[in-house]
Protein backbone atom coordinates (compact mmCIF):
# COMPACT_ATOMS: atom_id res chain seq x y z
CA UNK A 1 0.00 0.00 0.00
CA UNK A 2 1.29 3.47 -0.84
CA UNK A 3 0.97 6.24 1.70
CA UNK A 4 1.38 9.90 0.77
CA UNK A 5 1.97 13.33 2.19
CA UNK A 6 -0.70 15.84 1.20
CA UNK A 7 -2.07 19.22 2.36
CA UNK A 8 -0.01 21.10 4.92
CA UNK A 9 0.37 24.27 6.93
CA UNK A 10 3.12 26.14 8.75
CA UNK A 11 2.59 28.90 11.32
CA UNK A 12 5.70 30.83 12.32
CA UNK A 13 6.81 34.47 12.55
CA UNK A 14 7.12 34.30 8.75
CA UNK A 15 3.41 33.70 8.27
CA UNK A 16 0.31 31.65 8.89
CA UNK A 17 0.43 29.50 5.74
CA UNK A 18 3.05 27.30 4.06
CA UNK A 19 3.03 29.63 1.04
CA UNK A 20 3.89 32.71 3.11
CA UNK A 21 6.64 30.81 4.89
CA UNK A 22 8.07 29.42 1.67
CA UNK A 23 8.25 32.76 -0.15
CA UNK A 24 9.77 34.44 2.91
CA UNK A 25 12.47 31.77 3.15
CA UNK A 26 13.28 32.20 -0.56
CA UNK A 27 13.56 35.92 0.14
CA UNK A 28 16.12 35.07 2.86
CA UNK A 29 13.95 36.28 5.72
CA UNK A 30 14.82 34.78 9.12
CA UNK A 31 12.42 34.16 12.01
CA UNK A 32 15.22 34.29 14.56
CA UNK A 33 15.96 37.70 16.06
CA UNK A 34 18.21 38.97 18.81
CA UNK A 35 16.11 40.16 21.72
CA UNK A 36 15.94 40.44 25.51
CA UNK A 37 13.94 37.73 27.19
CA UNK A 38 13.02 36.27 30.55
CA UNK A 39 13.01 37.35 34.17
CA UNK A 40 16.69 38.27 33.97
CA UNK A 41 16.16 40.22 30.75
CA UNK A 42 19.20 38.63 29.10
CA UNK A 43 20.06 38.68 25.42
CA UNK A 44 19.07 35.71 23.29
CA UNK A 45 18.39 34.98 19.63
CA UNK A 46 14.87 33.58 19.45
CA UNK A 47 11.97 33.08 17.04
CA UNK A 48 8.69 34.16 18.64
CA UNK A 49 5.28 34.56 16.98
CA UNK A 50 4.03 38.06 17.86
CA UNK A 51 0.83 38.16 19.94
CA UNK A 52 -0.67 40.85 17.67
CA UNK A 53 -0.47 38.52 14.65
CA UNK A 54 -1.96 35.63 16.60
CA UNK A 55 -4.77 37.79 17.98
CA UNK A 56 -5.84 38.86 14.52
CA UNK A 57 -5.78 35.30 13.21
CA UNK A 58 -7.61 34.03 16.32
CA UNK A 59 -10.74 35.93 15.33
CA UNK A 60 -11.49 32.84 13.21
CA UNK A 61 -11.51 30.65 16.33
CA UNK A 62 -14.83 30.15 18.09
CA UNK A 63 -14.44 31.15 21.77
CA UNK A 64 -10.76 31.89 21.25
CA UNK A 65 -10.39 33.10 24.86
CA UNK A 66 -10.80 29.52 26.07
CA UNK A 67 -7.55 28.42 24.45
CA UNK A 68 -3.87 28.82 25.24
CA UNK A 69 -1.35 30.28 22.78
CA UNK A 70 -0.18 26.86 21.60
CA UNK A 71 -3.75 25.58 21.35
CA UNK A 72 -4.82 28.56 19.22
CA UNK A 73 -1.85 28.17 16.90
CA UNK A 74 -2.57 24.45 16.59
CA UNK A 75 -6.28 24.99 15.91
CA UNK A 76 -5.49 27.50 13.16
CA UNK A 77 -2.91 25.22 11.56
CA UNK A 78 -5.13 22.13 11.64
CA UNK A 79 -8.15 24.13 10.42
CA UNK A 80 -6.20 25.23 7.35
CA UNK A 81 -5.43 21.62 6.43
CA UNK A 82 -8.97 20.39 7.17
CA UNK A 83 -10.49 23.17 5.05
CA UNK A 84 -8.29 22.47 2.04
CA UNK A 85 -8.48 18.68 2.27
CA UNK A 86 -12.22 18.74 3.10
CA UNK A 87 -11.64 16.12 5.77
CA UNK A 88 -13.25 15.97 9.16
CA UNK A 89 -12.31 14.42 12.48
CA UNK A 90 -15.91 13.23 12.82
CA UNK A 91 -14.82 10.50 10.39
CA UNK A 92 -13.59 7.48 12.41
CA UNK A 93 -10.99 6.80 9.71
CA UNK A 94 -9.35 10.19 10.29
CA UNK A 95 -6.98 10.66 13.23
CA UNK A 96 -4.99 13.48 14.82
CA UNK A 97 -1.45 12.82 16.01
CA UNK A 98 0.05 15.65 18.07
CA UNK A 99 3.80 16.03 18.48
CA UNK A 100 5.23 18.24 21.23
CA UNK A 101 8.02 18.28 23.79
CA UNK A 102 6.54 20.68 26.37
CA UNK A 103 3.00 21.63 25.30
CA UNK A 104 1.43 24.24 27.58
CA UNK A 105 4.47 24.26 29.91
CA UNK A 106 4.02 28.03 30.33
CA UNK A 107 1.06 27.14 32.60
CA UNK A 108 3.57 26.09 35.25
CA UNK A 109 4.77 29.69 35.53
CA UNK A 110 2.47 31.32 38.10
CA UNK A 111 3.82 34.78 37.30
CA UNK A 112 2.03 34.65 33.92
CA UNK A 113 -1.69 35.29 34.30
CA UNK A 114 -3.66 32.92 32.13
CA UNK A 115 -7.30 31.86 32.35
CA UNK A 116 -6.44 28.31 31.31
CA UNK A 117 -6.95 25.51 33.85
CA UNK A 118 -3.58 24.21 35.12
CA UNK A 119 -4.68 20.71 34.17
CA UNK A 120 -3.95 21.64 30.56
CA UNK A 121 -0.25 21.39 31.33
CA UNK A 122 -0.87 17.66 30.88
CA UNK A 123 -0.09 16.96 27.22
CA UNK A 124 -3.08 14.64 26.73
CA UNK A 125 -5.36 17.38 28.09
CA UNK A 126 -4.02 19.91 25.63
CA UNK A 127 -4.36 17.49 22.72
CA UNK A 128 -7.90 16.52 23.76
CA UNK A 129 -8.83 20.21 23.95
CA UNK A 130 -7.62 20.71 20.38
CA UNK A 131 -9.34 17.52 19.16
CA UNK A 132 -12.59 18.48 20.90
CA UNK A 133 -12.59 21.84 19.12
CA UNK A 134 -12.95 19.83 15.91
CA UNK A 135 -15.46 17.40 17.49
CA UNK A 136 -13.08 14.52 16.85
CA UNK A 137 -14.46 11.01 17.19
CA UNK A 138 -11.02 9.50 17.85
CA UNK A 139 -8.88 10.35 20.84
CA UNK A 140 -5.72 12.00 19.48
CA UNK A 141 -2.39 10.23 19.76
CA UNK A 142 0.24 12.32 21.56
CA UNK A 143 3.91 11.75 20.85
CA UNK A 144 6.50 13.36 23.11
CA UNK A 145 9.94 12.04 22.20
CA UNK A 146 12.23 15.08 22.33
CA UNK A 147 13.27 16.66 19.04
CA UNK A 148 12.51 13.57 16.94
CA UNK A 149 8.80 13.71 17.85
CA UNK A 150 7.65 15.40 14.64
CA UNK A 151 9.34 12.99 12.25
CA UNK A 152 8.41 9.86 14.17
CA UNK A 153 4.83 11.16 14.27
CA UNK A 154 4.91 11.21 10.45
CA UNK A 155 6.44 7.71 10.32
CA UNK A 156 3.91 6.43 12.89
CA UNK A 157 1.12 7.87 10.74
CA UNK A 158 2.41 6.00 7.71
CA UNK A 159 2.64 2.77 9.69
CA UNK A 160 -0.86 3.11 11.15
CA UNK A 161 -2.36 3.72 7.72
CA UNK A 162 -0.50 0.72 6.29
CA UNK A 163 -1.79 -1.38 9.19
CA UNK A 164 -5.29 -0.51 8.00
CA UNK A 165 -6.46 1.34 11.09
CA UNK A 166 -6.93 4.76 9.46
CA UNK A 167 -7.12 6.33 6.02
CA UNK A 168 -6.12 9.89 6.88
CA UNK A 169 -3.91 11.16 9.67
CA UNK A 170 -3.19 14.81 10.37
CA UNK A 171 0.17 15.15 12.08
CA UNK A 172 0.44 18.42 13.99
CA UNK A 173 3.66 19.44 15.72
CA UNK A 174 4.01 22.45 18.00
CA UNK A 175 6.13 24.00 20.72
CA UNK A 176 6.49 27.47 22.25
CA UNK A 177 9.48 29.51 23.28
CA UNK A 178 9.19 29.69 27.07
CA UNK A 179 11.38 30.73 29.97
CA UNK A 180 11.27 27.05 30.88
CA UNK A 181 13.11 25.93 27.74
CA UNK A 182 15.28 29.02 27.31
CA UNK A 183 16.64 28.76 30.87
CA UNK A 184 17.16 25.03 30.49
CA UNK A 185 19.12 25.18 27.24
CA UNK A 186 21.09 28.13 28.61
CA UNK A 187 22.14 25.97 31.58
CA UNK A 188 23.63 23.60 28.99
CA UNK A 189 25.47 26.51 27.33
CA UNK A 190 23.68 25.38 24.20
CA UNK A 191 22.36 28.74 23.03
CA UNK A 192 23.89 31.11 20.51
CA UNK A 193 23.26 34.81 20.95
CA UNK A 194 23.30 35.28 17.18
CA UNK A 195 21.44 33.66 14.27
CA UNK A 196 22.66 30.06 14.36
CA UNK A 197 25.10 28.57 11.87
CA UNK A 198 24.38 24.90 11.16
CA UNK A 199 27.44 22.94 10.00
CA UNK A 200 29.56 26.10 9.97
CA UNK A 201 33.04 26.23 11.53
CA UNK A 202 31.98 29.12 13.78
CA UNK A 203 28.71 27.59 14.99
CA UNK A 204 28.20 28.16 18.69
CA UNK A 205 24.79 26.89 19.60
CA UNK A 206 21.10 26.78 18.82
CA UNK A 207 18.39 29.40 18.59
CA UNK A 208 15.05 28.36 20.08
CA UNK A 209 12.00 28.93 17.93
CA UNK A 210 8.26 28.52 18.25
CA UNK A 211 6.06 27.22 15.48
CA UNK A 212 3.23 24.88 14.62
CA UNK A 213 3.10 22.78 11.47
CA UNK A 214 0.52 20.30 10.22
CA UNK A 215 0.87 17.65 7.51
CA UNK A 216 -1.86 15.36 6.18
CA UNK A 217 -0.75 11.78 5.62
CA UNK A 218 -3.21 9.74 3.56
CA UNK A 219 -3.72 6.66 1.42
CA UNK A 220 -6.43 8.35 -0.63
CA UNK A 221 -5.11 9.24 -4.06
CA UNK A 222 -8.03 11.63 -4.56
CA UNK A 223 -6.90 13.68 -1.55
CA UNK A 224 -3.45 14.55 -2.83
CA UNK A 225 -2.07 18.06 -2.99
CA UNK A 226 0.41 19.36 -5.57
CA UNK A 227 3.44 18.72 -3.32
CA UNK A 228 2.38 15.16 -2.47
CA UNK A 229 5.11 12.57 -2.18
CA UNK A 230 5.05 8.95 -1.11
CA UNK A 231 6.39 8.19 2.37
CA UNK A 232 8.30 5.10 1.45
CA UNK A 233 9.86 4.24 4.79
CA UNK A 234 11.14 5.57 8.08
CA UNK A 235 12.96 4.29 11.15
CA UNK A 236 14.24 5.35 14.54
CA UNK A 237 17.17 4.07 16.61
CA UNK A 238 18.86 4.83 19.91
CA UNK A 239 22.59 5.48 20.36
CA UNK A 240 22.47 3.70 23.74
CA UNK A 241 25.39 5.92 24.70
CA UNK A 242 24.50 9.17 26.53
CA UNK A 243 21.29 10.99 27.37
CA UNK A 244 22.30 14.50 26.38
CA UNK A 245 25.05 14.11 23.81
CA UNK A 246 25.01 12.20 20.52
CA UNK A 247 27.21 9.21 19.76
CA UNK A 248 30.49 10.51 18.27
CA UNK A 249 30.23 7.94 15.50
CA UNK A 250 26.56 8.71 14.87
CA UNK A 251 25.53 5.10 15.49
CA UNK A 252 21.82 5.67 16.06
CA UNK A 253 21.42 8.06 13.14
CA UNK A 254 23.45 5.74 10.90
CA UNK A 255 21.16 2.85 11.84
CA UNK A 256 18.04 4.97 11.25
CA UNK A 257 19.28 5.96 7.80
CA UNK A 258 20.37 2.47 6.74
CA UNK A 259 17.09 0.96 7.95
CA UNK A 260 15.13 3.62 6.09
CA UNK A 261 17.06 3.06 2.86
CA UNK A 262 17.18 -0.73 3.16
CA UNK A 263 15.47 -2.33 0.13
CA UNK A 264 15.31 1.13 -1.40
CA UNK A 265 18.32 1.37 -3.72
CA UNK A 266 17.38 4.86 -4.70
CA UNK A 267 19.36 8.02 -5.40
CA UNK A 268 18.81 10.64 -2.72
CA UNK A 269 18.40 14.06 -4.30
CA UNK A 270 18.50 16.15 -1.14
CA UNK A 271 18.81 15.78 2.62
CA UNK A 272 16.95 17.96 5.10
CA UNK A 273 19.23 17.54 8.09
CA UNK A 274 18.59 18.21 11.77
CA UNK A 275 21.49 20.69 11.85
CA UNK A 276 20.90 22.38 15.20
CA UNK A 277 24.22 24.29 15.10
CA UNK A 278 25.61 22.74 18.26
CA UNK A 279 29.24 21.63 17.91
CA UNK A 280 28.30 18.00 18.63
CA UNK A 281 25.07 17.43 16.70
CA UNK A 282 26.23 18.75 13.35
CA UNK A 283 29.55 16.89 13.56
CA UNK A 284 27.73 13.65 14.42
CA UNK A 285 25.25 14.06 11.57
CA UNK A 286 28.02 14.61 9.03
CA UNK A 287 29.77 11.46 10.27
CA UNK A 288 26.56 9.44 10.01
CA UNK A 289 25.87 10.75 6.48
CA UNK A 290 29.37 9.86 5.31
CA UNK A 291 29.17 6.39 6.92
CA UNK A 292 25.89 5.84 5.08
CA UNK A 293 27.55 6.77 1.78
CA UNK A 294 25.51 9.96 1.38
CA UNK A 295 28.39 11.99 0.00
CA UNK A 296 27.86 14.69 -2.67
CA UNK A 297 24.17 15.04 -1.88
CA UNK A 298 22.92 18.60 -1.34
CA UNK A 299 22.24 19.08 2.39
CA UNK A 300 20.64 21.91 4.30
CA UNK A 301 19.38 22.70 7.74
CA UNK A 302 16.34 24.98 8.01
CA UNK A 303 17.18 25.95 11.56
CA UNK A 304 19.09 28.98 10.32
CA UNK A 305 15.68 30.43 9.39
CA UNK A 306 13.38 28.98 12.08
CA UNK A 307 15.63 28.15 14.97
CA UNK A 308 15.05 24.85 16.73
CA UNK A 309 11.30 24.38 17.02
CA UNK A 310 11.54 21.16 19.08
CA UNK A 311 8.26 19.22 18.71
CA UNK A 312 7.35 21.16 15.55
CA UNK A 313 10.75 20.75 13.86
CA UNK A 314 10.28 17.36 12.22
CA UNK A 315 6.93 18.39 10.74
CA UNK A 316 7.80 21.98 9.80
CA UNK A 317 11.08 21.10 8.11
CA UNK A 318 9.50 18.19 6.22
CA UNK A 319 6.62 20.40 5.03
CA UNK A 320 8.88 23.18 3.79
CA UNK A 321 11.14 20.70 2.00
CA UNK A 322 8.11 19.04 0.34
CA UNK A 323 6.83 22.44 -0.82
CA UNK A 324 10.25 23.32 -2.24
CA UNK A 325 10.60 19.90 -3.88
CA UNK A 326 7.29 20.44 -5.70
CA UNK A 327 9.02 23.33 -7.46
CA UNK A 328 12.34 21.49 -7.82
CA UNK A 329 13.85 24.08 -5.52
CA UNK A 330 16.81 23.58 -3.21
CA UNK A 331 16.77 25.95 -0.23
CA UNK A 332 20.01 27.56 0.90
CA UNK A 333 21.26 26.44 4.30
CA UNK A 334 21.00 29.80 6.11
CA UNK A 335 23.87 30.63 8.47
CA UNK A 336 26.41 28.47 6.65
CA UNK A 337 29.54 29.86 5.02
CA UNK A 338 32.54 27.72 5.97
CA UNK A 339 32.56 23.92 6.41
CA UNK A 340 32.94 23.07 10.07
CA UNK A 341 32.36 19.31 10.23
CA UNK A 342 34.56 16.36 9.37
CA UNK A 343 32.06 14.21 7.48
CA UNK A 344 32.07 14.81 3.72
CA UNK A 345 28.84 16.62 3.02
CA UNK A 346 27.79 19.08 0.33
CA UNK A 347 26.01 22.10 1.76
CA UNK A 348 23.44 24.02 -0.27
CA UNK A 349 24.92 27.50 -0.37
CA UNK A 350 22.37 29.30 -2.52
CA UNK A 351 18.75 28.86 -3.55
CA UNK A 352 18.84 26.94 -6.80
CA UNK A 353 16.77 24.66 -9.00
CA UNK A 354 17.50 20.94 -9.23
CA UNK A 355 15.66 17.74 -10.09
CA UNK A 356 14.27 16.64 -6.75
CA UNK A 357 12.49 13.30 -6.81
CA UNK A 358 13.60 11.98 -3.42
CA UNK A 359 14.09 13.56 0.00
CA UNK A 360 15.77 12.11 3.08
CA UNK A 361 14.83 13.83 6.35
CA UNK A 362 16.87 13.21 9.51
CA UNK A 363 16.39 14.21 13.17
CA UNK A 364 18.13 13.55 16.50
CA UNK A 365 17.27 14.34 20.10
CA UNK A 366 18.02 14.19 23.80
CA UNK A 367 17.81 10.67 25.14
CA UNK A 368 20.03 9.35 22.34
CA UNK A 369 17.14 9.09 19.91
CA UNK A 370 17.42 9.46 16.12
CA UNK A 371 15.11 9.02 13.16
CA UNK A 372 15.06 9.22 9.38
CA UNK A 373 12.37 9.09 6.68
CA UNK A 374 12.39 8.77 2.90
CA UNK A 375 9.97 10.62 0.61
CA UNK A 376 9.66 9.86 -3.12
CA UNK A 377 7.67 11.57 -5.88
Amino acid at each position, binding site marked *: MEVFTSYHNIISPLGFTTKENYSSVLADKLCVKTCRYG*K*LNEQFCLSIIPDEQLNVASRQIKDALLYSKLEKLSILSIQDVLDRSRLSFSDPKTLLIYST*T*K*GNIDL*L*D*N*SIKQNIPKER*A*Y*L*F*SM*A*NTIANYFKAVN*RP*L*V*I*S*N*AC*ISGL*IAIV*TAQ*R*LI*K*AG*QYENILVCGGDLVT*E*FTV*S*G*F*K*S*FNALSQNPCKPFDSRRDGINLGEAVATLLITKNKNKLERSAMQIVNG*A*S*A*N*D*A*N*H*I*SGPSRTG*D*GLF*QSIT*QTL*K*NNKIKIDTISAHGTATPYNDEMESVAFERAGLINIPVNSLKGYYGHTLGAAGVLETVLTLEAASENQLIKSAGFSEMGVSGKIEMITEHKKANINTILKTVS*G*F*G*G*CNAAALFVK
Partner: protein
Amino acid sequence: MPKQDIPSYFFADAYKHFEMNYPKFHKMDNLSKLGLIATDAAIKGNDFLQRNKPEATAVVMVNKASSLDTDRIHQQSINDKNNYLPSPATFVYTLPNIVIGEIAIKHKLTGENLFLVCNEFDAQLLIDQAQITFSQETRAAICGWVDYDNGNADALIYLVEIADDSIKNTNFIPLNATTLNQLYK
Protein backbone atom coordinates in the same frame (compact mmCIF):
# COMPACT_ATOMS: atom_id res chain seq x y z
CA MET B 1 -4.52 0.33 38.18
CA PRO B 2 -4.64 1.75 41.67
CA LYS B 3 -2.07 4.44 42.30
CA GLN B 4 -0.09 4.19 45.46
CA ASP B 5 1.72 6.85 47.42
CA ILE B 6 5.23 5.57 47.51
CA PRO B 7 7.51 6.09 50.47
CA SER B 8 10.73 8.01 49.93
CA TYR B 9 12.82 4.87 50.43
CA PHE B 10 10.99 3.02 47.64
CA PHE B 11 13.66 3.56 45.01
CA ALA B 12 16.58 2.78 47.31
CA ASP B 13 14.91 -0.43 48.46
CA ALA B 14 13.98 -1.50 44.94
CA TYR B 15 17.53 -0.79 43.78
CA LYS B 16 18.88 -3.12 46.45
CA HIS B 17 16.21 -5.74 45.90
CA PHE B 18 16.93 -6.04 42.20
CA GLU B 19 20.70 -5.90 42.82
CA MET B 20 20.98 -3.28 40.17
CA ASN B 21 24.60 -2.35 40.71
CA TYR B 22 24.31 0.73 38.51
CA PRO B 23 25.71 3.94 40.06
CA LYS B 24 24.15 6.22 37.41
CA PHE B 25 20.78 5.32 38.92
CA HIS B 26 21.17 7.72 41.80
CA LYS B 27 21.46 10.80 39.55
CA MET B 28 18.27 10.02 37.68
CA ASP B 29 14.90 11.60 38.19
CA ASN B 30 11.92 9.69 39.64
CA LEU B 31 10.47 8.73 36.27
CA SER B 32 13.73 7.25 35.01
CA LYS B 33 14.33 5.39 38.27
CA LEU B 34 10.83 3.93 38.08
CA GLY B 35 11.28 2.91 34.46
CA LEU B 36 14.62 1.25 35.13
CA ILE B 37 13.32 -0.69 38.13
CA ALA B 38 10.20 -1.82 36.29
CA THR B 39 12.23 -2.96 33.29
CA ASP B 40 14.73 -4.85 35.47
CA ALA B 41 11.82 -6.52 37.27
CA ALA B 42 10.35 -7.61 33.94
CA ILE B 43 13.48 -9.03 32.34
CA LYS B 44 14.98 -10.59 35.45
CA GLY B 45 14.99 -14.35 35.30
CA ASN B 46 14.12 -14.64 31.62
CA ASP B 47 16.26 -14.43 28.53
CA PHE B 48 14.21 -11.88 26.57
CA LEU B 49 17.29 -9.70 26.00
CA GLN B 50 19.47 -12.64 25.01
CA ARG B 51 16.88 -13.93 22.53
CA ASN B 52 16.53 -10.64 20.70
CA LYS B 53 19.21 -8.57 19.00
CA PRO B 54 19.72 -5.06 20.48
CA GLU B 55 19.03 -3.30 17.17
CA ALA B 56 15.89 -5.38 16.80
CA THR B 57 14.44 -4.47 20.19
CA ALA B 58 12.18 -1.43 20.38
CA VAL B 59 11.25 0.45 23.54
CA VAL B 60 7.72 1.88 23.57
CA MET B 61 6.57 3.75 26.66
CA VAL B 62 3.40 5.59 27.60
CA ASN B 63 2.33 7.67 30.55
CA LYS B 64 -0.15 10.31 31.67
CA ALA B 65 2.05 12.92 33.29
CA SER B 66 4.89 13.10 30.75
CA SER B 67 7.86 14.55 32.70
CA LEU B 68 5.77 16.94 34.82
CA ASP B 69 7.25 15.72 38.10
CA THR B 70 10.70 16.91 37.04
CA ASP B 71 9.27 19.86 35.08
CA ARG B 72 7.95 21.30 38.34
CA ILE B 73 11.40 21.04 39.89
CA HIS B 74 12.97 22.90 36.96
CA GLN B 75 10.21 25.53 37.06
CA GLN B 76 10.86 26.02 40.77
CA SER B 77 14.51 26.83 40.01
CA ILE B 78 13.55 29.71 37.72
CA ASN B 79 10.57 31.25 39.53
CA ASP B 80 12.56 33.78 41.51
CA LYS B 81 14.80 36.14 39.56
CA ASN B 82 16.89 36.66 42.70
CA ASN B 83 17.44 32.95 43.15
CA TYR B 84 17.58 31.83 39.53
CA LEU B 85 19.43 28.52 39.34
CA PRO B 86 18.44 26.24 36.43
CA SER B 87 20.53 23.07 36.39
CA PRO B 88 21.38 20.95 33.33
CA ALA B 89 21.27 17.83 35.52
CA THR B 90 17.57 18.53 36.15
CA PHE B 91 16.67 20.03 32.78
CA VAL B 92 17.82 16.97 30.83
CA TYR B 93 15.08 14.97 32.59
CA THR B 94 12.32 17.37 31.53
CA LEU B 95 11.58 15.13 28.55
CA PRO B 96 9.63 11.90 29.14
CA ASN B 97 11.60 9.88 26.57
CA ILE B 98 14.74 10.15 28.70
CA VAL B 99 13.44 7.10 30.58
CA ILE B 100 13.71 5.24 27.25
CA GLY B 101 17.23 6.63 26.84
CA GLU B 102 18.26 5.38 30.28
CA ILE B 103 16.80 1.91 29.61
CA ALA B 104 18.55 1.86 26.22
CA ILE B 105 21.89 2.78 27.77
CA LYS B 106 21.69 0.27 30.62
CA HIS B 107 20.66 -2.64 28.42
CA LYS B 108 22.42 -1.45 25.26
CA LEU B 109 19.24 -1.39 23.20
CA THR B 110 19.70 0.33 19.86
CA GLY B 111 16.29 -0.26 18.30
CA GLU B 112 13.22 1.90 17.69
CA ASN B 113 11.89 4.32 20.30
CA LEU B 114 8.47 5.83 20.88
CA PHE B 115 7.09 7.77 23.84
CA LEU B 116 3.35 8.46 23.94
CA VAL B 117 1.19 10.38 26.38
CA CYS B 118 -2.33 9.19 27.20
CA ASN B 119 -4.72 9.92 30.05
CA GLU B 120 -5.16 6.31 31.09
CA PHE B 121 -3.44 2.97 30.83
CA ASP B 122 -4.48 1.31 27.58
CA ALA B 123 -2.82 -2.07 27.06
CA GLN B 124 -4.07 -2.38 23.50
CA LEU B 125 -2.63 1.01 22.53
CA LEU B 126 0.79 -0.07 23.78
CA ILE B 127 0.70 -3.37 21.97
CA ASP B 128 -0.63 -1.80 18.73
CA GLN B 129 2.13 0.79 18.78
CA ALA B 130 4.76 -1.87 19.42
CA GLN B 131 3.43 -4.04 16.63
CA ILE B 132 3.54 -1.31 14.03
CA THR B 133 7.24 -0.88 14.75
CA PHE B 134 7.73 -4.54 13.82
CA SER B 135 9.29 -4.52 10.42
CA GLN B 136 12.20 -5.98 8.58
CA GLU B 137 14.38 -5.19 11.56
CA THR B 138 12.32 -4.86 14.73
CA ARG B 139 11.32 -8.21 16.19
CA ALA B 140 10.73 -7.40 19.84
CA ALA B 141 9.64 -4.55 22.09
CA ILE B 142 9.78 -3.61 25.72
CA CYS B 143 6.48 -1.79 26.26
CA GLY B 144 5.67 0.05 29.40
CA TRP B 145 3.27 2.28 31.23
CA VAL B 146 5.62 4.27 33.46
CA ASP B 147 4.05 7.20 35.30
CA TYR B 148 5.28 9.31 38.17
CA ASP B 149 3.24 12.25 39.39
CA ASN B 150 2.75 13.96 42.77
CA GLY B 151 4.45 11.16 44.69
CA ASN B 152 2.45 8.42 42.97
CA ALA B 153 4.33 5.77 41.03
CA ASP B 154 2.64 3.48 38.55
CA ALA B 155 4.41 1.06 36.24
CA LEU B 156 3.70 -2.03 34.17
CA ILE B 157 5.99 -3.58 31.60
CA TYR B 158 5.01 -5.84 28.70
CA LEU B 159 7.49 -7.78 26.62
CA VAL B 160 6.32 -8.37 23.08
CA GLU B 161 8.13 -10.42 20.49
CA ILE B 162 7.65 -12.18 17.21
CA ALA B 163 8.28 -15.85 17.85
CA ASP B 164 7.75 -18.37 15.07
CA ASP B 165 6.00 -15.68 13.02
CA SER B 166 3.39 -14.98 15.64
CA ILE B 167 3.21 -12.18 18.15
CA LYS B 168 3.83 -13.31 21.69
CA ASN B 169 3.01 -11.07 24.63
CA THR B 170 4.32 -11.54 28.11
CA ASN B 171 3.13 -9.18 30.75
CA PHE B 172 4.44 -8.75 34.20
CA ILE B 173 3.06 -7.73 37.53
CA PRO B 174 2.35 -4.07 37.98
CA LEU B 175 5.00 -2.41 40.06
CA ASN B 176 3.88 -0.23 42.90
CA ALA B 177 4.40 -0.13 46.64
CA THR B 178 2.04 -3.04 47.31
CA THR B 179 3.49 -5.41 44.77
CA LEU B 180 7.03 -4.55 45.74
CA ASN B 181 6.18 -5.32 49.37
CA GLN B 182 4.83 -8.67 48.23
CA LEU B 183 8.10 -9.39 46.48
CA TYR B 184 9.96 -8.97 49.74
CA LYS B 185 8.03 -11.77 51.41
